């Protein structure tokens, strides 16, 4: 359903800081895939998501979604069918607005420029139902400003906002990376539940090898702007951290190294 064809991207082209991230990267995402993406520092994981979301324009290559060429579609237009959660809990919500106001913006995704009331009794009911699903007590705090929530609560809220109006594809960029371990587990469980229940095609970048192996049906390992491993199905189900690292060494001829990578 999502096809990346021959993508190339260079940052700071023609300067001493030139950084060639992608040269002819291709990826074919199938309907219903839950892909986890791991990789060393600077492998291009976040750039990949930013290119799909339209935050960063590509230098060459094409992006197709459901057969439609979206390569030149601006970010705000792609938002109609792409849901995103960022690593930084500050990025996904509007801090000085209330929980219900934030939800209202997500509920009206891609048709926000209307003069209809942002909040109605009916919408509040719907929001309460969504929030009571995640059992963080947020359904009692609809009128609370989001800046008063914890990082984990904000990420859970962002996740709801990204999936409330079912997106064609959900992009998660290390969305539990800035959370404490306990909260990370809660948000990960919530992610799995929503993705499964709503059958949302998902790409999740993570720095946690265990999560990458445990979650999803397909695992990509990136290295220097290339997809060096693409593991799916039974092979994915039988994967362990040792096997994964060994496989990486076989393919790449070097040891896997990532400062922040959590092995367990």
């Amino acid at each position, binding site marked *: 359903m999502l096809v990346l064809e021959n993508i190339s991207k260079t940052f700071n082209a023609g300067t001493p800081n030139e950084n060639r991230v992608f040269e002819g990267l291709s990826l074919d995402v199938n309907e219903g895939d839950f892909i986890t993406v791991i990789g060393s520092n600077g492998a291009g994981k976040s750039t990949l998501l930013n290119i799909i*979301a339209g935050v960063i324009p590509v230098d060459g290559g094409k992006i197709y979604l459901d057969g439609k060429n979206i390569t030149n579609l*601006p*970010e*705000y*237009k792609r*938002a*109609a069918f*792409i849901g*995103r959660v*960022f690593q930084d809990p*500050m*990025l*996904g*919500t*509007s*801090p*000085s*607005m209330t929980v219900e*106001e*934030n939800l*209202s*913006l*997500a509920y*009206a*995704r*891609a*048709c*926000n*420029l*209307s*003069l*209809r*009331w*942002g*909040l109605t009794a009916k919408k509040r009911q719907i929001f309460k139902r969504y929030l009571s699903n995640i059992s963080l007590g947020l359904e009692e705090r609809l009128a609370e400003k989001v800046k008063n929530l914890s990082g984990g609560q904000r990420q859970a809220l962002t996740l709801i*906002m*990204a999936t409330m109006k079912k997106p064609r594809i959900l992009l998660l960029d290390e969305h539990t990376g800035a959370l404490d371990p306990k909260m990370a587990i809660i948000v990960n469980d919530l992610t799995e539940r929503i993705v499964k229940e709503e059958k949302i095609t998902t790409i999740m970048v993570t720095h946690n090898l265990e999560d990458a192996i445990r979650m999803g049906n397909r695992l990509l390992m990136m290295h220097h702007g290339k997809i060096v491993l693409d593991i799916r199905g039974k092979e994915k189900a039988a994967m362990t951290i040792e096997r994964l690292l060994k496989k990486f060494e076989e393919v790449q001829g070097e040891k896997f190294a990532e400062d922040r990578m959590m092995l367990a």
Partner: protein
Amino acid sequence: MWQNMLLKSVEQGLVFSIMALGVYITLKILNFADLTVDGSFPLGAAVAASLIISGHSPFTATITAILAGALAGLITGILNTGAKISELLSGILTMTSLYSINLRIMGRPNIPLLNEPTIFTSLQEFVKVQFPGFPLEYIYLVTFLLFAGAIELMLVLFLKTQLGLSLRATGDNPQMIRSQGVNTNVTKIIGLCISNALISLSGAIVAQYQGFADVGMGIGTIIAGLASVIIGDALLGERSIITSTLGVILGSILYRFSISLVLSFRLAQASDLKLLTAVVVVIALTIPRFKNFMRGSIIPSERG
């Protein structure tokens, strides 16, 4: 004399609060430092005065002034979002060109309106007929109170619509609202249009209230608007849209009052007005820091 001074400063505070609400939209809602203000305020006065002396109804003149202000905001918005010129410079460019445009509109630097029909002459006649006992010296006060109240109410209601929420999110977290499918260039331009329309409206009313339009009447408007917003913030805080817009109106009244107070003590002369304004803003901005400083020196910090 005291009573008169109080009345005058409340009147002025209310009529300029419409301008201050415009500044509030860009500064607080959109987080956009818009300097178009110093041009769009006299633009409203120029358009209204020119139309009135050429025989148009004062109501047509005032509504045209609102549209002219929105147009000025649109130009600043296009310069910023389309031509990618910085916020400050976009506003300065529009403001500077408006000086020449205002002179063109008026055809001369000053238009007196003393014997012309204004919205107030029509209003006075209406009140004389409908409410014969009404004390006419309060007619401005009541009119401005209704005006400022109505505009505040409309603004509060607008900010509760889906579009209004998008505008607030644009100022608060543009990345987030883009990922919800909103083109932040559009929301910015809409906010700038509404803001400058209000500022221009305020200019049009002020011209009819004081009885003239002058090409130089815009100088320092942004600082007065800023002072009102900051004083309002210090008074009522940012609990909700209603309290903060109410704060802006109160801030505007308090600002006018403190200025006339200083002038009435003959501590300063009328030409010192802009300097006084700047001092008021500096004081309002530094009071919170000063409070923290005092608190810090009384209660020793944990490090000792």
